[in-house]
């Protein structure tokens, strides 16, 4: 049998066994009990040609955004990705390298990550950023654990308008360590955090308040006012959409202590929800409590600039159970994609994308409201997503839209378990006016 990835000839195998002093391959496993007596119950090996056919066929049974328009976001967004982003990121010196443990031969990775950290600091308005977490949800969970380490307190208040999956993940992470998680209500009119509820629940044991900006329902939280209602020794953790920060004030300027979020929207494909990456930024004073790898600048022995992983004594490979987190592999390659994307966007591009998202979403909302088939749910300001109550079940509406080659809004009830007949609409710079006009008139006629 020929295996393209296995280079040994039978003759070489024989020579190598002889060098070891063994007769046959099975002798290499003579110390192993419970050896398998039979082959695995799986398909035999295939040629690349066959595998390509199988994979192509599987991929064709999915509805892709190449063929369908989309009005759905809810944490994963369809933005334009310049052609060079993936082509550059796919260079094999990035793709097939490991964690930069040997700094002298990993300067490409290390400088890229250092630049990435800088970009995240710039976007969030924070002083330091690590070199990534798995995703927005786990980044939020780790930020809650970090807030407990910083404050030595165990109660964390989470706005109930944070992405429901992020709250679930945070529950999973904090369950074993006696964190007291309490949800803060939102104002049923505006969709923003309910300050009365905040005042009622905040107390001496509170470590942090977590708010999503813009929140899961698309509403822009007033984090300035929120911060003013939180004593300064309690941390404010902001879960942010980085694209929105091209338009919205940086959380760092509004008093955030830790800013985390999902970075998929920065140049990464939707990938069925992964991989994207979690970004994690904080004030400098908390850097020793941060989870994950951090890259720092230094000099080599000839005085040349270079980069290394710093503060490794926070990490599991040095500190074992006393580490700030168990994270080892992160999402480095996805931060490369984001760095290239952000280099493309540049200083003005992020703003342009953000403003287009804003205006297109508002146009979409306006058109949908004109159809008189929908009612707004929240009065608070929104960025590029908003909730409408539909006069027909969202599932049926989406089925009809799918027939027109559109992936409709998120059926909120399916994700939150409440919000019956509520649809979370999304627009990005990719959403064309003619698409908006088409679906709104289609829905008007249909419903």
């Amino acid at each position, binding site marked *: 049998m020929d295996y393209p990835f296995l280079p040994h000839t039978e003759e070489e195998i024989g020579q190598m066994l002889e060098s070891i002093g*063994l007769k046959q391959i099975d002798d290499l496993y003579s110390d192993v009990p419970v050896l398998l007596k039979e082959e695995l119950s799986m398909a035999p090996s295939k040629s690349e040609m066959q595998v390509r056919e199988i994979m192509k066929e599987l*991929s064709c049974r999915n509805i892709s955004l190449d063929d369908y328009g989309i009005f759905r976001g809810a944490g994963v967004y369809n933005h334009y990705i310049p052609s060079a982003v993936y082509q550059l990121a796919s260079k094999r010196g990035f793709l097939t390298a490991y964690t930069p443990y040997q700094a002298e031969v990993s300067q490409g990775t290390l400088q890229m990550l250092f630049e990435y950290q800088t970009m995240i600091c710039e976007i969030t308005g924070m002083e330091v950023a690590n070199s990534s977490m798995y995703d927005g*949800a786990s980044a939020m969970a780790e930020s809650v654990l970090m807030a407990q380490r910083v404050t030595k307190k165990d109660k964390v208040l989470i706005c109930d308008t944070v992405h429901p999956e992020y709250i679930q993940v945070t529950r999973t992470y904090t369950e074993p360590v006696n964190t007291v998680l309490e949800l803060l209500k939102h104002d049923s009119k505006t969709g923003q955090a309910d300050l009365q509820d905040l005042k009622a629940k905040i107390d001496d044991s509170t470590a942090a308040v977590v708010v999503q900006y813009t929140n899961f329902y698309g509403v822009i939280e007033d984090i300035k006012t929120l911060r003013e209602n939180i004593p300064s020794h309690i941390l404010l953790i902001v879960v942010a959409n980085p694209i929105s920060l091209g338009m919205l004030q940086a959380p760092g300027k509004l008093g955030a202590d830790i800013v985390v979020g999902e970075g998929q929207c920065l140049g990464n494909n939707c990938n069925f929800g992964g991989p994207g990456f979690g970004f994690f930024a904080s004030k400098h004073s908390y850097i020793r409590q941060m989870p994950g790898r951090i890259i720092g600048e230094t000099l080599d022995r000839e005085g040349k600039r270079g980069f290394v992983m710093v503060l490794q004594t926070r990490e599991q490979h040095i500190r074992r159970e006393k580490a700030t987190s168990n994270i080892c592999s992160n999402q480095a390659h996805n931060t490369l994609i984001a760095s290239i994307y952000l280099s493309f966007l540049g200083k003005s591009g992020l703003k342009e994308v953000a403003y287009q998202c804003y205006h297109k979403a508002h146009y979409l909302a306006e058109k949908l409201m004109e159809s008189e088939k929908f009612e707004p749910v929240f009065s608070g300001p929104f960025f590029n997503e908003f909730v409408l109550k539909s006069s027909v079940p969202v599932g049926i509406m989406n089925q009809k839209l799918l027939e027109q080659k559109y992936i409709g809004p998120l059926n909120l009830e399916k994700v939150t378990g409440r919000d019956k007949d509520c649809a979370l609409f999304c627009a990005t710079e990719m959403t064309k006016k003619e698409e908006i006009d088409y679906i709104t008139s289609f829905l008007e006629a249909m419903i």
Partner: protein
Amino acid sequence: MKFIFEHSVEGKKAFRLEELDVPLSQIDFPQYLLRDVPPELPQVSELDIVRHYTQLEKLNHSVDSGFYPLGSCTMKYNPFINDETASYAGFSKIHPYEEEDSVQGALELMYNLQQSLCEITGMDAITLQPAAGAHGELTGMLIIRKYLLDKGFTNKTKVIVPDSAHGTNPASAKMAGFDIVQVKSDEHGLVDIQDLKMNMTDEVAAIMLTNPNTLGIFEKNICEIQKIAHEKNALLYYDGANLNAIMGKVRPGDMGFDVVHLNLHKTFSTPHGMGGPGSGPVGVKKHLSPYLPKPVVEMDIDGRYYFNNDMPLSIGKVRSFYGNFSVMVRAYTYILMMGKDGLRRASELAVLNANYMRVKLSKSFKISHENICKHEFVINGSALKEYGVKTLDFVKMLLDNGIHPPTVYFPLIVEEAMMIEPTETENKETLDNTIKVFEDILKVAKTDPQKLHDAPFNTPVRRLDETKATKDLKVRYSIK
């Protein structure tokens, strides 16, 4: 080389959007929520970006550029076909909240991958949700914790980890709320059974093991260890970092392990991508399957695939959505290519390569243990001290020879350790050349040790000042 920011020229752009085709809407939120100062992102042209990242790429050692025998990391060749299939629009451009009927191909792929991984590991059910190996460990330990609590074992607060274990093991168990008990290795590099028995109290929830262990040695007493664990109602956890030694030969499930995590980015050849994205599926035996993170992919009687969220005992979710899907696509592609015969062959040749290097190098170097190893082995570099050099100095000279150093100073129980994992995709010529380079460097150590202190010479930078990096902590570029 310059930072991307240092190429910035005010007003330069590499991005052009379509003109806004909708009317402008009012900004209806307070002025203080409107960004006043834009982030200082680079202002460069497309070619500036292309040149910058092309130059950065050249500064990296990678599997494609040369041998990468980094122990416990399984730096095998990453087939191009993996990346091709992962890039198909039907995989890369699908939204996680699409209706199940719109993504049947993706669900079938996940289902098939679950089945394949169950078969390879001998487990009954699997979750693909964890994003990396350590994430899988945390998931596995949370499953164990919840299972034991539900069974009424409220006193099981400890987890046993051998002193040869990966650092993530104790860190993950700790995050899952356990205290760590370390057990010793014996003179053969195996878990010290006496020490294990002594520490095996009713309070122990689980034993975390890597098998073969980080010395590359198979824990041949595994059947006894599993008995010791199960007699005390503790569970046995398998760290799959070293699965590349045993595919199609022996299965963790058959050895008595209750929980297994895998590293698809290691064993299943999806690239490491500079340290991620990975994928760390967790397989469990039947009694633990209700505790898996939700959802898992299942198939109904009509052959339709769906996400099962109806899992009341589940530990919850460990990340958003379903995991690093495009890593799963790559791993599945690899599994299809290799099949049952190819996976088995891969493991056999990985072990053959490691033993070949071990035996050849044992003529000049002290190997931690002289037994037959599996996919990796560890050199004890303490003899280098005689010449006034350390393992660190030794490996820096490997860099000058285009070879990535082994994992160094790990496992912690071997002095001046160099942990070598050649993988199955390296040919005999590469191994022979590397063996010669090792021997040549040893000669330099004997005759001109200063040269090793000064190495590397030919790398993009020379040795870096790590103390300065921590002392003058600088973790971002200061713009202007």
